């Protein structure tokens, strides 16, 4: 059996994650009142992406786990962004 050491997160880190998620949720609501044209979507996606990053890094323990999981996760996100980029090659120039 594997004797890998399990990382146990502290309450403080959980509370900090919760706080960050609440602040960013408030921010994503707040930016809807700003008129930024097509950049509204971009800003909303950035905030949502940051929230997902916080959840993945601390709450889901990517920061403390074997680096291979982080590498695969980043690779998948890069692939997803590339697919979005190629899709918007159509929408941006129509």
């Amino acid at each position: 059996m594997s004797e890998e050491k399990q990382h146990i997160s502290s309450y403080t880190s959980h509370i900090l994650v919760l706080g960050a998620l609440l602040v960013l949720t408030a921010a994503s609501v707040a930016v809807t009142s700003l008129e930024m044209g097509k950049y509204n979507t971009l800003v909303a996606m950035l905030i949502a992406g940051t929230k997902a990053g916080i959840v993945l890094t601390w709450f889901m323990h990517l920061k403390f786990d074997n680096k291979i999981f982080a590498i695969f996760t980043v690779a998948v996100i890069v692939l997803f962004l590339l697919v979005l980029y190629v899709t918007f090659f159509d929408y941006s120039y129509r």
Partner: protein
Amino acid sequence: MSETITSKHVSFLEHKGKYKGLLGWILSTDHKRVGLLYLYTMLVFFSIAAILGLLMKIQLIAPGYTIMGPQTYNSMFTVHGIIMIFIIVVPGLPAVFGNFFLPIMIGAKDVAFPKLNLASWWIYIIGILVVLSSQFVGGWPDTGWTFYAPYSFRTPTNVLPALFGAFILGFSSILTGINFVVTIHRMRAPGMTWFRMPLFPWTLYATAWIQILATPVIGITLLLTVMERVLGVGVFDPTLGGDPILYQHLFWIYSHPAVYIMILPGMGAISEILPVFSRKRIYGYKAIVLSSLAIAFVGYFVWGHHMFTSGMSGRALYAFSFLTFIVAIPSAIKVFNWVATMHKGSLNFQTPFYWAVSFIFVFMIGGFSGLTLGSLATNVHVHDTHFVVAHFHFIVFGGTGYSFMAALHYWYPKMFGRMYDRGWANTGWAVFFGGFLTLYLPMFGLGMQGMPRRYYDYLPEFHTGNIISSLGAILMIVGAIIVIVNLVRSARYGEKTSEKNPWGGKTLEWETDTPPTLENWEDLPTVEERPYEYK
């Protein structure tokens, strides 16, 4: 004690587990039995879809109404496409030969998650039943297997179960992909480094990542179409502010990589067969591995070539055309390596070799016609014509179908412990190959002449090509019947064999018993050299 030893030495076919009879199969978590369950299911549905295809070709043997009207024809090509794509070629080689041989080829006793593996098959069956329910209630769907918006939520036919069934089938694919990735990462035998792994597992690995990452896109797209149809959410519907081209983007973001889900494991199987029947080390092992990964990666970015006439922006057209030409390179690398492997080899002309070599032939025709379609100028002229049907079948049927048959004839003695009749197998291949070319080659000409696809009728000038093509379809079905009857009959009555290595292979599956025992290995093998080391 003696019972335990006996059960260890009994083949997986004869092993008596917790359940007997049919339950011993449909509740078995043994990866080999799960692989065979997929094989039998696919055999049944392939037969149904092939008959639908034959009926369409009989309809097209003469202009006008021959045996069916336009609505029936539309339903025929829809159901033919849905069954062939979602039930046969997408699960295809990974589900059958991946399940059966991946653990054996990497020296493991089973896949990483055996129960999940069986669950994948059950989800597959549930998906099939949901798809089939569309045939019996409210009229067959008539959208084509692509379910294009806005027609898919406007048609009065029963398209909902077909959409939902395809959505369910996607889960089976994802779970199989996860199982294979974990199995390959965690369960390789001692000494089997990444670059000592045979090429079939390598292609399964590349495929599994596409299954995991691309399938959710089609899942959510089909679900959105269901919501569009039921709730009118307005994502794709232009009358509600939606964008039907967005549907095409999302559909092809999955469905183009899905072509590589279909073809990559086939390429892996061919890469196993050619060195064995050439008695030569595979030429450019690492190039084949890297080109498999390159195909899997670049294959994500070429989906737009299905949409050249849909109304995309000009810059997107150039980008997709360029990327399409790029993805041809790793495929060409593989073909070069296969030919180089055979060059100056000691060729052994057996049935698997015939299928493998004819695979290269038809795949090349499919590949080159793909470049014709990937080129913007020619695409405009042949888009949605029979040229596309010919190209598609040369790649998907010629690629996946031929490699599937090559793999089945190659691994058959190991799977069943019996040998098929080689004379009938070779005859079946020859008739099938002749029929295949007679069926699909004229379609290139018909497409160049301007005959559109998905029409039950045509102008008189297309008659000659259609007669030849329809006769080819009949010939090909005769060939398929010879092949399938020979294999099915031989599974029961074929010459028994317990020879471990009838072809002289160098990979691990040829070191285990024929047929393999329940857990494949008494002691896990140790791997000390790369595969295909023919001296």
